[in-house]
């Protein structure tokens, strides 16, 4: 090998190694997503799953690189709040959902989504009271699984409520509404769920940022 040949071969080799390394890094980066959360399944004839969620106006610096983004959080078995929106659920099982709603109202873009559909009894409990519709302007978020025709509008905390939550995870002492509802999981598959309220402050139509990044306001039900 001549010296220029060595030089060029060296350059090509370095470029190839660097390229492959960068490629692996980028691919790995793009493959990363929120880790799935496995809630505990209550066994027995009345097989069911309890899912406890909270919605925060600002997720907080401890849970996300974007502390001001709005987000759902899920409570794990140890009582800790985690920021993941991918939940693994068993098929054909009743899921009891409890949502602690800490965020204020933003209003629905499409008022039609203020009607509860697809839950057991097509209704929900808001602070203990049964409701099947809310005023669309009071909606803060929704829990919607369009493939199941399931939608639950979540009523926001009143603007003048005392002790509002700043950054998540919010404590139970902060002002909140408690919404509970139940639904049956369908057969196995991946079902996306999302929020339909334009709640991403600062983005066009309230639908950028956390509304279009997995792990905040939308995710998947991995039913198996």
């Amino acid at each position, binding site marked *: 090998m001549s010296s220029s040949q060595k030089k060029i071969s060296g350059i090509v080799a370095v470029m190839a190694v660097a390229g492959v390394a960068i490629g692996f890094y980028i691919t790995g980066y793009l493959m990363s997503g929120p880790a799935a959360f496995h809630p505990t399944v209550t066994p027995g004839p009345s097989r069911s799953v309890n899912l406890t969620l909270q919605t925060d106006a600002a997720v907080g610096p401890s849970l996300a690189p974007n502390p001001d983004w709005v987000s759902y959080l899920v409570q794990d078995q140890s009582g800790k709040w985690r920021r993941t929106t991918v939940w693994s659920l068993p098929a054909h099982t009743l899921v009891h959902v409890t949502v602690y709603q800490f965020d204020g109202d*933003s*209003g629905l*873009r*499409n*008022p*039609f989504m*203020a*009607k509860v*559909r697809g839950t057991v009894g097509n209704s929900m409990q808001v602070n203990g009271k049964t409701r*099947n*519709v809310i*005023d*669309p302007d009071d909606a803060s978020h929704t829990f*919607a699984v*369009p*493939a199941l*025709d399931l939608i639950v509008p979540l009523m926001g905390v009143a603007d003048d409520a005392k002790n509002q939550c700043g950054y998540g995870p919010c404590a139970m002492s902060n002002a909140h509404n408690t919404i509970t509802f139940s639904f049956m999981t369908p057969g196995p598959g991946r079902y*996306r769920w*999302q929020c*339909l309220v*334009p*709640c*991403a*402050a*600062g*983005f*066009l*139509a*309230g*639908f950028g940022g956390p*509304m*279009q*990044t*997995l792990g905040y306001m*939308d995710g998947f039900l991995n039913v198996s």
Partner: protein
Amino acid sequence: MMRKLGHGARIALIWLVASTVGDVLVATVLTPHLPPGTGSTEASGQRFDNEVLTLVCIPIIALILVFFSYVLIVFRRRTGAPLTDGPPIRGNARVQTIWIASTTLIVLFLAAFGTYELLGGAGGGQGSGPVFVPDASAASLAQGAKPLQVQVIAQQWQFTYRYPDDGGFESAQFVLPVNRQVELHVTSLDVIHSFWVPALGVKADANPGADNIAYVTPTKVQSLHIECAELCGLFHGYMFDTGRVVSAAAFATFVAKQRAFVAPVTRYLPKYATTYLPEPAFRAG
């Protein structure tokens, strides 16, 4: 016989056979499978359109493929043959004229035919002032003097449907009566979507703040697959839905039942309009 023919005549002969066989196969075997089927007047029109286009294209494809195959085989340099130059033919005015004239004729025919097929609307979205309005069929007129209006409201990432002729209720279910002309008004609440029902041959972009009208007359009772055909963000790939084409009686039942079911929320809906620009619109929270 082939021996006596010149190269040109042989190519012409092979081409004639190939395109005849090809076109016969298209007309008999392929046509029943051509999209978008016969679920509506519009879909049938598009299928006929696709059939005619395929019939026209087969001879063109055959000409190019036959010509090149023939030329590449016959005029190839044999192994070991010297690298001699070919004859210096720099053009042929007659061939060029024929080529230009025939391609122009084909193109003008296709454009005229396409325009003729378009006159019925062809199921495409035509904006707020449709020009190509199809005539309603007798069966449709028997069900109502005016086409049934259905509004498609797209948002990230779900379609909902409004039935202004029946009190303006909104539903998550897309149901149409068979043999009735439908006037679809497609609009969006946020970004561009596209309402696509492959089986009905309907596609219309949903634009924020704009009304996009498409006409369709379903002719077959069937269930429908609905898709979003314009990239609209994170869950674009999940923005599909199902719908149904049902008999007139079943449609009346659907309307009555659904109307009662959604009654609690109907009073909150804005007055029916061709477009909606809900607040907050821009960057606000």
